[in-house]
């Protein structure tokens, strides 16, 4: 089953604040980001990927339509997922994060996305080790990737630092 990224529109952040924005001095601790999927047919969401920038906790809510007659409902998929174990220090502050479907605790998946495929039984593992055929396919993938990189690399001969025997240099380059 191949995965494709779904085009989405990420709106600007809106601060949730009690009181008048102009007069209160405190910085709001909660910001909301709206993500919409304009003109996309129903799909099964597997993974959300983003780069963090000093967000400590994340909650995700989706709005689902159950039928034409009942109004749309907001459902919480993820609540207070911790991205920074210590918000006053740098741990996790600028990490790349992926959230997967199976991390959402209540798994009645919103219907407007699609009818999700029922969970497959996991392949029984030997002593907690990953399935060898999966590993070998990963190795194949990595090998292919390395070959690609190597092919596009204009690298010097292994172990040699000169170019065709010449190491007569100008000055050091700043770029």
């Amino acid at each position, binding site marked *: 089953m191949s995965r494709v990224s779904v085009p989405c529109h990420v709106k600007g952040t809106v601060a949730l604040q009690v009181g008048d924005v102009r007069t209160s001095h405190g*910085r709001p601790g909660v910001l909301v980001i709206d993500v919409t999927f304009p003109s996309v047919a129903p799909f099964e969401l597997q993974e959300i*990927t983003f*780069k963090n*920038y*000093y967000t400590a906790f994340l909650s995700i809510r989706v709005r689902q339509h159950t039928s034409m007659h009942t109004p749309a409902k907001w459902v919480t998929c993820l609540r207070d997922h911790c991205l920074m174990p*210590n918000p*006053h*220090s*740098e*741990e996790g*502050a*600028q*990490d*790349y*994060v*992926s959230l*997967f479907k*199976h991390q959402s605790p209540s798994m009645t998946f919103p219907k407007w996305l699609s009818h999700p495929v029922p969970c497959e039984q*996991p392949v029984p*593992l030997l002593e907690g*080790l*990953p*399935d060898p055929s*999966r*590993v070998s396919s*990963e*190795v194949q*993938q*990595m*090998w292919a990737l*390395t070959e690609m990189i190597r092919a596009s690399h*204009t690298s*010097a001969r*292994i*172990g*040699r*630092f*000169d*170019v065709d025997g*010449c*190491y*007569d*240099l*100008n*000055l*050091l*380059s*700043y*770029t």
Partner: protein
Amino acid sequence: MSQEESDISLIIAQIVQKLKGSNLYAQLERQAWASLQRPEIKLESLKEDIKEFFKISGWEKKLQNAVYSELSVFPLPSHPAAPPEHLKEPLVYMRKAQGSWEKRILKSLNSMCTELSIPLARKRPVGEQKELLNKWNEMGTDEPDLSLFRPVYAPKDFLEVLINLRNPNYENGDSLSFRTHLGLIQVPLKVKDIPELKECFIELGLNTGQLGIDDSTQVPPELFENEHVRIGQKVLAEQDSAAAQQYVRQGSPTALRAELWALILNISSQPEDILYYEQLKTNVIQHDLLVDSLIYKDVKLTASNDDYYFVFEDYLYQVLLCFSRDTSVLSHFAYNSASPPKSYIRGKLGLEEYAVFYPPNGVIPFHGFSMYVAPLCFLYHEPSKLYQIFREMYVRFFFRLHSISSHPSGIVSLCLLFETLLQTYLPQLFYHLREIGAQPLRISFKWMVRAFSGYLATDQLLLLWDRILGYNSLEILAVLAAAVFAFRAVNLMEVTSLAAAEAVLADLSTLKVMPLLQIFLFATVT
């Protein structure tokens, strides 16, 4: 596949990829082919029989050691969307700071080049090559005129850069308040406190035997030392890297240290390694680099003046000059926040096919760099082995002491750890020193940057470096620095100037590191 399972298979795939290019892989293949001759290898159960053979003959252990080595050195594979810079250093502002610092170093080197009209690199004429080859073993007798050369930077220049590091997202306020850090480091990295350090360094506890404490002359050797030596010999016989690493947490017996460190660093002198070193030596003979003069100057200024290390002067040249030519060091830049300086062949500026790294290993030495090598000379006398050990120590540990990163063993974290420990557990001392204009980090920085080399007595230094290897972390340097301040606290409380404070802490050569560490971590009333 669950997330953890796919993480593990990605790690396995990466390690397999790395090892496929290694000598070990070729050896295992040869051994597997050769084993087909053996009677116990049957065609029906070929895979199982070869695996069994590897287990019995010790080759499985070698493979285990290689895997363990990879796991210790390389960071875990990061998120697939993360670019390579993220692996070097995840925080953008730190990457930028490292980039600016590097630019300053390059400018400094370039201006030295133009002022002295000396090329960055030149091919030696044949006569000069012969001469150098002849005096390879006594390069120390050379007295070249190095007066015009100056070190590219000294630790105190680097400290100024670290002091000015700021996280643009961190609200600190302009005025001094309870929110601003009292120390010099102003970035909010996570550092361990004493309870966490006690958990981490649990083998240094009061109830565990230590070399450096329980092998002193007053303690009968039957109580700890004899048994510890016996276990050490067993670990060496088993040739198990992970066991060796665990073992040296309690210190390594002098007689076993060289072998134990080699086992932990997964260094075995194969003929290929000796050949590789000889190739590097040839590169030194053929090309003269500007950094060579920097190395000469550094050795003459530091190690040659040191009572313990001056005898090793020639070894230091033999290691450091070859180190500069070693392109295999370039691979560590994948996880080092620093990047190797780039240059172009004369007349080919901007043409990528003529782009090279300078020096070939990408590392520009600074004032004191040779002190990373000097203590190792006590352990290893064969130049290629000494070289391999130093190179591995550098790409595992020492590079973190002079690059700007958020890594827990990076110099920034060590500085913050030192300051935080001092502020939390010796607040009066910290406040007093700050009031008299003697910020403690200004004194302890140089100790940590050099991993205490040249400041402690050699036997004590080696006991300290045992723990660096044992815990695969440099945090012990910050803890020791704080412990030294704690030890001399009474004298320090009486001084009234930075110079006087420095005088109190000028001579560390009589200190015994293990009792200091143990008392600071486990026996101080907090």
